[in-house]
């Protein structure tokens, strides 16, 4: 009798896991210090970008704010679930940001009231970027230690130089991070830069989705 009860519970849990849209939301409480830190990073990014571009191309764009409900639990990907979906106008491939000036990622799956975002920390993520005022080209490579590779050796980059998006998929000039360390070898024509990221995915409570038609 006890065994049948156990089997019934297992079947119920498995059905909820694989056949239903149910998932346990792991929304965390809002931390005022973290919010201020993120606001500060966002303003810094805005100032840095205004210095470079003279204007911010995304300031007049519509954003929708969404709460972070859950984070991907394994190392092989880096994704988050948010509480906005089809009903709120979210579509696949829309751009997600922290504040309005820091690139977070892209919407990969959309459900009725939820969406999944692949973040720039995902190991599979690669993105053309530019570095500093000189707009030096590089390729952003995400993962455990985010870095910019394929930087021409003769180009001058410095620590604290801002790294920003230069891909057609995203608005030009969204901040990704800052150069923390430059790695150069005697051989080869390229150097790479290890990045300091302006946020930690685990600390995110609220994000923004850039609304496009």
């Amino acid at each position, binding site marked *: 009798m006890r065994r049948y009860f156990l089997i019934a519970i297992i079947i119920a849990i498995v059905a909820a896991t694989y056949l239903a849209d149910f998932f346990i939301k*792991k929304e965390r409480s809002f931390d005022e210090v973290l919010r201020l830190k993120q606001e500060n990073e966002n303003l810094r990014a805005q100032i840095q970008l205004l210095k470079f571009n003279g204007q911010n191309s995304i300031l007049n764009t519509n954003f929708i704010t969404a709460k972070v409900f859950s984070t991907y*639990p394994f190392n092989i990907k880096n994704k988050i679930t948010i509480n906005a979906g089809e009903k709120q106008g979210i579509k696949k491939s829309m751009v997600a940001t922290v504040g309005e000036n820091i690139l977070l990622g892209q919407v990969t799956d959309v459900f009725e009231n939820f969406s999944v975002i692949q973040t720039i920390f995902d190991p599979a993520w690669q993105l053309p970027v530019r570095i500093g005022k000189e707009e030096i080209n590089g390729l952003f490579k995400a993962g*455990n230690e985010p870095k910019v590779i394929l930087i021409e050796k003769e180009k001058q980059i410095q620590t604290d130089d801002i790294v920003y998006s230069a891909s057609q998929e995203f608005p030009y000039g969204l901040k990704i991070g800052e150069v923390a360390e430059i790695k150069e070898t005697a051989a080869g024509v390229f150097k790479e830069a290890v990045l300091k990221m302006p946020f930690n995915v685990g600390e995110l409570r609220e994000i923004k989705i850039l609304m496009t038609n």
Partner: protein
Amino acid sequence: MRKLPILFLSVGLLSFLQSFGFSIFGVKPNLALVAVIAASFFVANFWQGLLLIALAGLILKFAPGFEKEIMIFSLIGAGAVIIKNRLPWHQFLSNLTLIALGILIFYVILAPNLILSPIFLKELFLNLILGILIFAFFSFLWQNKTA
């Protein structure tokens, strides 16, 4: 002491910890899989092991819809419950072998390109350390009473 509620609670808590993004030096250990494998040596029967796997799978699910990763996680856990008593070594060593094998299979199926990356080795190392600690904790609770 009743084993199942304690195992249920331990696996549940560690799964929640993992799904909240717990990480050590930027590496997220697979706490749920480690807990399920270590706990499988202390459950009374196959169904209790399956219950722990189902619980961990439900907690780890992070979005609506079907998730391949949770399915692979559950199959690896179920495999560990089935073969744990067929391994010729002491349970402590079998636990570590199953954890290493489980993590390897997980990566081979879901992210083969990451097997040669430092993230795999770091996660494997962390999982083995945590596997030792969790197994030692359960052994301490039920000395000489393992199933």
